[in-house]
């Protein structure tokens, strides 16, 4: 049945021009949130206006945006047993993705550059061994999987050459809830997969930082990977929460200045790189966003409660918080763009 539907939709694709993102107002980015008791996914303009909103069945974590068609895949919070493909034009749930038996989605996913494939971060539920699920996007059937190269993969990003960068957070979780099972022995890594799924590079942190879970990623145009971490060790230790990785080289850590060392409370929630090469790192726990130069040097800290979502906006950034505000950010200041009654969720997903 699914195959037949895929076949028919394939035929339709040949016959009719498919609508693109322009059909839904050419959003700058997507952001999920909660309005009263409803969970929604919004398309946002660069000035923070909602261009469309579609309902989600529950609280999401992150989404993946199709590069051309107005399709978004919303992932459940980990450990997730479903992801849904939403038609942003109609709001219809086009497909409901279920990982194979014994696998769980782990919060993030990304499309291939041509949109023909969707990659999903997953774990084998019993062991938290990481997998990258591969789905074709005509009918969203599962067509394969790769090893992610580590335990507990979370974010993943696509490189310009089609390779994937995966943040293997290192944390094994109980398959039934989110309790962490291996904090004493965790060992996160960054892994680069070729377009064919071969592991071509990996990088680990120094042993003293193995309890620093690598969770979120941003890619610069020159290929630099910025990674955001969450510290599972003693909160009294001032550890870096931002790192940079030139694929193939050891990762470079970017410690904050001493006076700023505890403002993030050991927890970075999202990271983004702007067109000018600035890096923004958010901490909803600490209620701050920091801005860094291209080499990771700390430039500024701005306070905003529960700020988490961040994506590039020209030379600066667009940010979201849990109180319903969207902000623009440059080195000097945070400026409110809009404020509404949607509590914005962890991440903003750029359309690229």
């Amino acid at each position: 049945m699914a195959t037949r539907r895929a076949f028919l939709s394939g035929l339709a694709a040949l016959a009719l021009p498919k609508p693109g993102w322009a059909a839904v107002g050419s959003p700058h980015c997507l952001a999920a949130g909660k309005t009263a008791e409803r969970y929604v996914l919004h398309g946002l303009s660069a000035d923070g206006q909602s261009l469309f909103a579609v309902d989600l069945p529950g609280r999401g974590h992150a989404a993946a945006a199709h590069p051309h068609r107005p399709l978004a895949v919303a992932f459940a919070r980990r450990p997730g047993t479903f992801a849904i493909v939403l038609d942003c034009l109609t709001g219809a749930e086009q497909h409901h993705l279920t990982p194979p038996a014994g696998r769980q989605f782990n919060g993030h996913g990304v499309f291939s550059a041509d949109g023909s494939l969707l990659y999903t971060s997953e774990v084998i539920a019993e062991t938290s061994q990481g997998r990258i699920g591969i789905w074709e996007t005509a009918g969203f059937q599962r067509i394969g999987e790769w090893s992610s190269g580590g335990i507990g993969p979370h974010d993943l990003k696509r490189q310009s050459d089609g390779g994937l960068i995966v943040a293997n957070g290192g944390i094994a979780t109980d398959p039934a809830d989110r309790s962490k099972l291996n904090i004493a022995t965790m060992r996160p890594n960054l892994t680069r997969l070729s377009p064919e799924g071969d592991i071509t590079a990996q990088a680990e942190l120094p042993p003293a930082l193995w309890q620093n879970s690598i969770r979120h990623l941003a890619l610069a145009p020159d290929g630099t990977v910025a990674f955001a971490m969450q510290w599972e060790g003693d909160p009294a230790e001032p550890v870096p929460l931002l790192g940079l990785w030139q694929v193939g080289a050891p990762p470079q850590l970017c410690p904050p200045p001493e006076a700023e060392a505890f403002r993030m409370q050991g927890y970075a929630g999202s990271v983004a790189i702007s067109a000018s090469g600035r890096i923004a790192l958010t901490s909803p726990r600490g209620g701050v966003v920091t801005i860094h130069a291209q080499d990771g040097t700390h430039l500024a800290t701005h306070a905003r409660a529960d700020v988490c979502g961040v994506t590039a906006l020209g030379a600066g950034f667009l940010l979201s918080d849990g109180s319903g505000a969207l902000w623009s950010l440059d080195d000097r200041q945070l400026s409110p763009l809009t404020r509404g009654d949607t509590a914005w969720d962890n991440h903003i997903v750029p359309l690229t």
Partner: protein
Amino acid sequence: MLKRLTLMLALLTSPVHADVADVVADHILPGYAAFAQATADLDLQAAASCDPDTLRPAFQTAFDAWMAVQHLHLGPVEEAGRGLAIVFWPDPKGLGRKAQLALVQGDPAKLTPEAFADQSVAARGLTGLERLLYPTGPWPADTCPLIRATAADLARLAAEVQGGWTSGFADQLLTAGAPGNTRYLSEAEARQALFTVLVTGLAQLHDQRLGRPMGTFDRPTPERAEAVASGRSLRNVRLSLQALRALTESLTEAAPLTQAALDHAVTLTETLNDPVFAGTATPSGRLKVEVLQQAVEQARLAVLAEIGPALGVGLGFNALDGD
């Protein structure tokens, strides 16, 4: 029934701004003014004498004044590392002592007010002074210049925090939601900021001031208690609880369960005869501290259940989520 009636009366009689305005006027500004005064006194005395015995009472008074405001993790104290430079604890790697050892034996030019303000936050403040006024072993050189520099720097920090509040930050909190206020976009956000301070303060008491010396049942770690040398570990817990109770009182009248829970915890600190939590080394002594820790957790749960709804706010959507 009576409780509900009290609650309704409280809601009817409180002007909209009363909660935040009361906290600023009755709790925050007087607290920072007292801390600035106490550290100015300490600075003055240090200029006159470096004798630890002479300075200890003023040090204790300044630390008491800090405990009345130390939970206020917002605004000027969060900027430029001021809060860390006032008290740097916990310091599991002993960064403060190492930095101070370098300073007492190093270039005296580093002790001028301008240069000292740039020294490690771990070396400065009340924690730095405590190591100098209550030494656990001999220092390798004369500590008098460092005592004076630290006392002067502490007074400067306290004055800056107070000035930051009176010359801008208090207004930002009080004009939450007004056009042009980009720090607090609504009155609810200002209430939420104070609510977060309250919840975080109780969590910090639970996890740090009590949790660190408790360690685990099999391996208690009394040496990790706060301000052991000056004998303030338990006193800091009591003063912190009293400060959080005062904050609660100013924040809302509709919190009888929270007040009762905080009162209970304060009472436990008054009967717990274990000033630096050395008792955590024994099972029965640790149990007593654990009872206090549970009382603090009960107070935190009461705040979440009672004050959050009363103020119409909760903890952060993302801060709580964690992913």
